[in-house]
């Protein structure tokens, strides 16, 4: 699917306006320009996420044994490089494996861990845990953080596209990440659910079925 983005134009010309006509704008005018710029950035993120969702739902999957712990290490390593100087206590259970699509599982883990990373912001230290447990005799993967959590009153909505449980000014995001997660888990005939409370962190559980 081709994505031709007029967004570069919008941000570029807004920037041009800001640079060359700033003296003719009053303070309020400058605020409006900043808003156009930041909204354009959000639109770009949204388009990227939607493209990802589209690709995930179209993806053909080659099932293979995937080293889940290694993927988690990779994602966390990348997040660590972006969020320099952040104090994060990580606990990743080694040696976890699953049968599934490597590419899709990596996207799934990225989304869950990015969420944990994002919502544990402001905790000192932030704690993020990844592991596997057994619930009702079934192996279940989980990510757990000690972040702001959320209210479990409408858990069904959690995985819906564009659904956001936090106001935008607190945590940036497009509300598509968990839809992507759900798509991928369903692709693997698994289930995904969450357990959380306001200000007491969140845990996301998911299962991966080896057979279709």
């Amino acid at each position, binding site marked *: *699917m*081709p*994505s*031709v*983005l*007029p*967004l*570069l*134009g919008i*941000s*570029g*010309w*807004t*920037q*041009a306006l800001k640079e060359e006509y700033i003296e003719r704008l009053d303070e309020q005018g400058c605020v409006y320009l900043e808003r156009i710029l930041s909204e*354009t*950035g959000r*639109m*770009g993120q949204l388009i*990227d996420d939607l*493209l990802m969702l589209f690709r995930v739902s179209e993806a053909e999957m080659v099932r293979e044994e995937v080293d889940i712990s290694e993927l988690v290490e990779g994602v966390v390593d990348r997040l660590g490089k972006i969020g320099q100087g952040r104090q994060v206590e990580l606990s990743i259970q080694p040696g976890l494996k699953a049968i599934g699509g490597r590419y899709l599982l990596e996207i799934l883990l990225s989304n869950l861990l990015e969420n944990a990373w994002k919502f544990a912001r402001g905790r000192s230290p932030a704690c993020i845990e990844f592991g596997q447990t057994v619930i009702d005799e079934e192996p279940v993967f989980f990510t757990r953080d000690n972040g702001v959590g959320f209210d479990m009153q409408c858990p069904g909505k959690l995985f819906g596209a564009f659904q956001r449980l936090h106001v935008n000014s607190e945590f940036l995001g497009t509300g598509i990440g968990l839809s992507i997660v759900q798509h991928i888990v369903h692709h693997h005939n698994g289930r995904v659910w969450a357990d959380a409370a306001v200000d007491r962190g969140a845990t996301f559980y998911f299962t991966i079925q080896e057979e279709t």
Partner: protein
Amino acid sequence: MSSKIILLAEGNVSDIELTRRALSKSHITNELVVVEDGQEALDYLFGTGEQVDWKKSPLPTLVLLDLKLPKIDGLEVLRRIRQIPRTRRLPIVILTSSREEQDVAESYGLGANSYIRKTVDFSQFVNSIKQLGLYWLVINEPPPPPRG
């Protein structure tokens, strides 16, 4: 360095002007020749167009090629450029908003020298233009001119 021409093949007027702006912000003062569709790009490079005099249109040092060009798309332009001895070694940088993995793979497959994704953020775009200008116009040793 100013005798080195940059050919920009880009169908969108806004993007043409933004690229011009980014070049000037990066203090890249080379002559910029703009063509707005794939046919025009080939006419310029092959000297086949009505307005184009082969002798008066020296080969550019660098081609910035968008993939979504009207008339003949960028990948086809690239394919034809690589078929002709005169333009076979011409440095071609794909400059596009396409994020398709397939476009990246095909571009390299057809002999693109570099692939730059246009970002949403204009200052990042300026930075990309600055770096690619520096690299292709100053640091890189260009291919020897074609014979004949």
